[in-house]
């Protein structure tokens, strides 16, 4: 049996999903991330049943690609759980009525039930059940209230197949139902409702955006640096290093195998940042330099995603984004790009036109460093001082703005208008926050660490056989001539195609000046998308646009890198 979980965006659908299935899913407070659905399994009376988390939709008459997908799911489901925001019946019941007109059993989950009381909303459940002729279960994704009842009511649900109505008739009926079942009592404005409105007002919003941005960066550095200084670096230095030194002694302190596993010794001991062995630098770079920042970045990003702040940023930046050929909504995929470019480019699907999607994805791939790139930028330049990090971000920001401006002028067409729901601020559920963080960290350890290890090994072997020197000599006019980097850096730049974090990690092993590190970081971020991003760009944009996009990246990366090399 296939159960479809359907509802408007921002009603806590994904939280209900994770309650039902218990598997880890990505859930966020804004539309976009559930495009390309999630599925899991739940137990109904001892039997396993499939549950599909359908992308949020306001209506079954699709207005954008994400909503089209939603109505397609209806054809393959056996029963629908319609998740409804109990604090916002007026808007949510339209979809409910549409669903009840279909030939499929529907159970209504009246979610956010726990929020109705302090919002002064009273709902007559029995009356609502009678009027809808369907089971209505009050639920709370946050506490898990009502989930058991919901599962039990699925088997007894029957298709009601109400008479098809016109749009006006449906809205009229929604009005009548709400009037009959809902009673509102007066209550004072809560302080954070004022804060909610302040964030979309020009002055207050601007100050808040700056404050959020500044404090995010501060906290990211604080958490990352503390993890390194107090946990991971001591772990490597005090516990791991003695074992490695013993192994080094056993291998005879030099030779082929010593070179591969331990690397070069500096003053008779291992330097985790320079030795370049599989077990020394190969483990230290991903685990003690990159991982701590991965943890802190994703932690903060998760909070920002789930509180409902991003749609507010979209409103604030709408006017500016129009100059770049986009509307404010495009800031959401862009912000996601700071996590990982892949879901970010997938999320550009919520933009209406192909033109917008091309501009937004190209800008993300060129000028938005993903978490692993940022972790390395922080790792590389952190000790040289905050101003070098700021310089990298500033350069990328300027590129983002200028490139968007130029693309907007060059490409035909107008940017469509913004239309977005501003959800209330919600406390991100800790459970989901932790689940999401764990998923992302696990992803990094499984995907990135092996690549870094393999890269260290390949480079070690190439180095031992002298092949590395030949490649470096051939490319040195570009690398040294234009970018001012040592010719050995070419390996890092090639590696950038597979993993940016690994590539930047290679730069860490080259002992570069701060200026060279800035040039290297900017060049690597801009030059080429990692292989995963490349694949998504291909599937989203098609071959022709992908080639355009990549040509732009390489040209720009060399121009901007070269320019930085000249002016710094």
């Amino acid at each position, binding site marked *: 049996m296939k159960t479809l979980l359907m509802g408007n965006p921002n009603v806590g659908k994904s939280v209900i999903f994770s309650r039902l299935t218990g598997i880890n899913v990505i859930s966020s407070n804004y539309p976009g991330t559930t495009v390309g659905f999630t599925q899991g399994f739940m137990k109904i009376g001892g039997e396993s049943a499939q549950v599909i988390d359908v992308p949020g939709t306001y209506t079954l008459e699709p207005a954008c690609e994400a909503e089209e997908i939603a109505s397609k799911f209806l054809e393959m489901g056996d029963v629908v759980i319609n998740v409804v925001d109990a604090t916002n019946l007026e808007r949510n019941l*339209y979809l409910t009525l549409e669903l009840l007109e279909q030939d499929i059993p529907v159970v209504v989950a009246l979610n956010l039930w726990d929020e109705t009381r302090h919002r002064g909303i009273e709902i007559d459940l029995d009356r609502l059940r009678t009027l809808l002729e369907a089971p209505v279960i009050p639920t709370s994704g946050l506490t898990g209230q009502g989930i058991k009842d919901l599962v039990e009511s699925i088997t007894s649900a029957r298709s009601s197949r109400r008479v098809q109505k016109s749009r006006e008739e449906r809205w009229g009926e929604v009005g009548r139902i709400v009037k009959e079942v809902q009673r509102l009592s007066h209550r004072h404005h809560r302080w954070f409702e004022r804060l909610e409105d302040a964030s979309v007002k020009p002055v207050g919003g601007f100050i808040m955006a700056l404050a959020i941005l500044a404090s995010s960066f501060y906290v990211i550095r604080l958490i990352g640096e503390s993890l390194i200084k107090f946990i991971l670096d001591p772990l490597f230095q005090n516990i791991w290093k003695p074992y490695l030194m013993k192994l080094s002694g056993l291998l005879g302190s030099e030779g082929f195998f010593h070179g591969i596993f331990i690397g070069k010794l500096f003053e008779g001991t291992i330097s985790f940042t320079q030795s370049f062995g599989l077990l020394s630098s190969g483990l230290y770079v991903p685990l003690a330099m990159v991982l701590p920042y991965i943890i802190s970045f994703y932690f903060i990003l998760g909070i920002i995603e789930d509180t409902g702040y991003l749609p507010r940023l979209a409103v604030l930046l709408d006017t500016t984004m129009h100059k770049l050929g986009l509307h404010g909504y495009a800031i959401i995929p862009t912000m996601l790009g700071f996590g990982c470019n892949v879901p970010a480019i997938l999320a550009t699907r919520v933009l209406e036109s192909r033109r917008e999607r091309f501009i937004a994805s190209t800008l993300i791939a060129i000028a938005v460093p993903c978490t692993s790139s940022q972790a390395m930028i922080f790792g590389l330049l952190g000790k040289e001082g905050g101003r070098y990090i700021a310089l990298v971000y500033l350069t990328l920001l300027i590129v983002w703005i200028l490139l968007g401006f130029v693309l907007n002028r060059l490409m035909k067409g107008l940017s469509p208008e*913004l239309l977005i729901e501003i959800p209330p601020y919600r406390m991100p559920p800790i459970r989901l926050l932790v689940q999401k963080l764990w998923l992302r960290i696990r992803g990094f350890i499984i995907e990135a660490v092996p690549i870094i290890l393999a890269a260290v090994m390949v480079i070690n072997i190439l180095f031992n056989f002298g092949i590395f020197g030949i490649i470096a000599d051939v490319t040195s006019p570009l690398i040294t001539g234009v970018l001012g980097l040592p010719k050995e850096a070419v390996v890092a730049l090639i590696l950038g195609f597979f993993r940016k974090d690994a590539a930047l990690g290679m730069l860490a092993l080259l002992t570069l000046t701060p200026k060279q590190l800035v040039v290297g970081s900017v060049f690597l971020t801009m030059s080429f998308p990692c292989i995963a991003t490349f694949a998504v760009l291909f599937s989203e944009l098609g071959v022709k646009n992908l080639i355009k996009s990549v040509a732009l990246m390489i040209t720009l990366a060399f121009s901007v890198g070269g320019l930085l090399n000249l002016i710094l």
Partner: protein
Amino acid sequence: MEKALTELKNNECGIIATIQGGRGVTDRLNALGIIPGKKVTNISSSPFHGPVTIQVDRTKIAIGYGMAEKIIVLAE
């Protein structure tokens, strides 16, 4: 008095009279509950012809300036 949604002042209310857009625009607005007869309140207007944020029922919605101009309301 009839005026465009963009002309509502902060905290001013109005009843939606007509939406002067093509089918595409009307459909998207309707889906969010912006239909003739509904009461809307202006929450904020961004400068330089930026989006207008309004409240309809219990939902807050930001609408691009060009689209908001096409929504005609009866100010109270």
